[in-house]
């Protein structure tokens, strides 16, 4: 069969967000892969330098719906570093807890999606059913199932009450047990193994060269975890293991994620034990002194880095966001090349791609018309309000 150009996206059931992947295929084999991003630009970096810090907090939260807490955490971390504000201990523990809650919910979401990509719908249904437990906890603690608005400049918004602690402990115990069950399934279900073992192979050294981060890197045996490498919040006080896997394939990444769910449960238990009483917020100046700072956070998908530069006003001069998916894209293209067409969805899913994160930036462009133009805000408003 002649070489065929095989498009995946911008609209494709395997991708939950619009992005265009182009593959050259020879029969069932992928010989070349390329990616075109930029379908979901939302001007976030530019907008950040046009709003005040409080507004930016919510803007950054909306870079991604799944890792929203990681984004606010990174943003606050950078701004607090510039302002020289130390947040209260209790707030740090609560932030840490939110961070780990989010890791559990994201990894479980991913496991379900992975099941869906390989046609294992039952796994998807079961994992998402169990994920409701963590969603309920998040809703109970923050009032929302996503975009929690929990992390504030100078602390956190809500406190944890003793009744909540009981409920969290119950939920976490259940989730831990389920995560162990899914770890079993992932390592023993024959069809699941057939679709994940030796699929999307990439070596640890190659991952490092291409700048991959998070479970992709750790799934190839490199133990880089920001929580250990650059401890933030109170991560240097809790015990956890940086999970790695030497398998270097989709199964390796799956196992790293499932084991991280178990670890996250343990971290939350430790946090609940260690959490001191006290304030949850501190006064935070509206005008942040001039300066610059970077903040690295281990989001669920990997290292998330923020660069913030302030100029002494209440509006930041520059906010730069680099999401884990962008860092993982070069590695993912290398993973699919040489594999089967059938493995494209699961291999791409194995980096837990989030294209909305990747694209966050600038352009508002009418793709359909072909002629590119920037829409002005009033035009957009008009378009959006056509009722």
């Amino acid at each position: 069969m002649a070489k065929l150009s095989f498009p995946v996206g911008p609209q494709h059931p395997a991708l939950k967000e619009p992005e265009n992947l182009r593959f050259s295929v020879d029969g069932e084999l992928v010989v070349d892969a390329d990616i075109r991003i930029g379908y979901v630009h939302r001007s976030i970096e530019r907008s950040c330098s046009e709003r005040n810090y409080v507004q930016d907090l919510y803007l950054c939260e909306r870079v991604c719906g799944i890792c929203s807490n990681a984004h606010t955490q990174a943003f606050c971390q950078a701004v607090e570093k510039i302002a020289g504000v130390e947040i209260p201990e209790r707030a740090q523990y609560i932030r840490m807890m939110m961070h780990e809650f989010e890791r559990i919910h994201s990894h479980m979401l991913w496991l379900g999606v992975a099941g869906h990509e390989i046609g294992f719908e039952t796994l998807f249904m079961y994992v998402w059913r169990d994920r409701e437990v963590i969603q309920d906890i998040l809703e109970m603690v923050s009032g929302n199932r996503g975009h929690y608005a929990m992390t504030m400049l100078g602390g956190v918004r809500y406190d944890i009450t003793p009744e909540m602690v009981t409920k969290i402990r119950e939920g976490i115990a259940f989730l831990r047990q389920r995560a162990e069950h899914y770890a079993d399934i992932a390592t023993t279900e024959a069809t699941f193994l057939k679709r994940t073992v030796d699929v999307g192979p990439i070596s640890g050294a190659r991952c490092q060269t291409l700048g991959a981060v998070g479970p992709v890197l750790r799934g190839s045996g490199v133990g880089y975890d920001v929580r250990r490498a650059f401890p933030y919040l109170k991560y240097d006080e809790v015990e956890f293991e940086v999970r790695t896997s030497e398998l270097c394939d989709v199964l390796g990444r799956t196992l790293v994620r499932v084991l991280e769910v178990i670890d996250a449960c343990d971290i939350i238990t430790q946090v609940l034990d260690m959490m001191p009483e006290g304030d949850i917020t501190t006064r935070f100046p509206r005008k942040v002194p001039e300066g610059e700072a970077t903040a690295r956070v281990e989001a669920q998908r990997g290292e998330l880095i923020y660069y913030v530069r302030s100029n002494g006003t209440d509006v930041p001069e520059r906010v730069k966001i680099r999401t884990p998916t962008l860092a993982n894209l070069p590695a993912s293209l290398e993973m699919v090349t040489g594999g089967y067409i059938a493995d494209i969805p699961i291999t791409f899913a194995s980096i837990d791609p989030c294209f909305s994160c990747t694209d966050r930036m600038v352009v508002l462009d009418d793709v359909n018309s072909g002629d590119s133009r920037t829409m002005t805000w009033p035009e957009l408003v008009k378009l959006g309000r056509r009722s």
Partner: protein
Amino acid sequence: MTASELIEQIQAQYGGELTEANASSEVEVWVGVPAVDVQKMAQYIVDSWAPVHLSTITGNDRGAHIDIIYHFVADGVSLNLRAAVDKAVDAIDTITPIVPAAIMYEREITDMFGVTISGHPDPRRLVLPEDWPEGDYPLRRDDSGAEEGEEKNG
């Protein structure tokens, strides 16, 4: 390795050429070099502390020049390498052959700031559409992006 040790090493090697060198914390270092020295510096970093992780490349329009900041992680220290690109020159050497992870980030810089990355192996657009007008760079403050007439937030 601590931040101060890292600075000492770099200064011992390139003391006179650095435009800045200071540690903002025990694990974070800010180093500035002239834009022409970027390749040399990247090579030095990779040779000295491999495997080096490049987190990202930040661009920032500072008026007369554009700051390009390379955020490395070298041997457990966050190493931020700053190069100021004069707007009159508007170009900087690629570091992709030395640090392959830079490939996407350098394309992003070209898209957003119009800084030419000389020698980049794949100089296509990354996030902007192919037919985006030349010379219109969204994150530049001077000539492009949102115009004054556009409402900020409503």
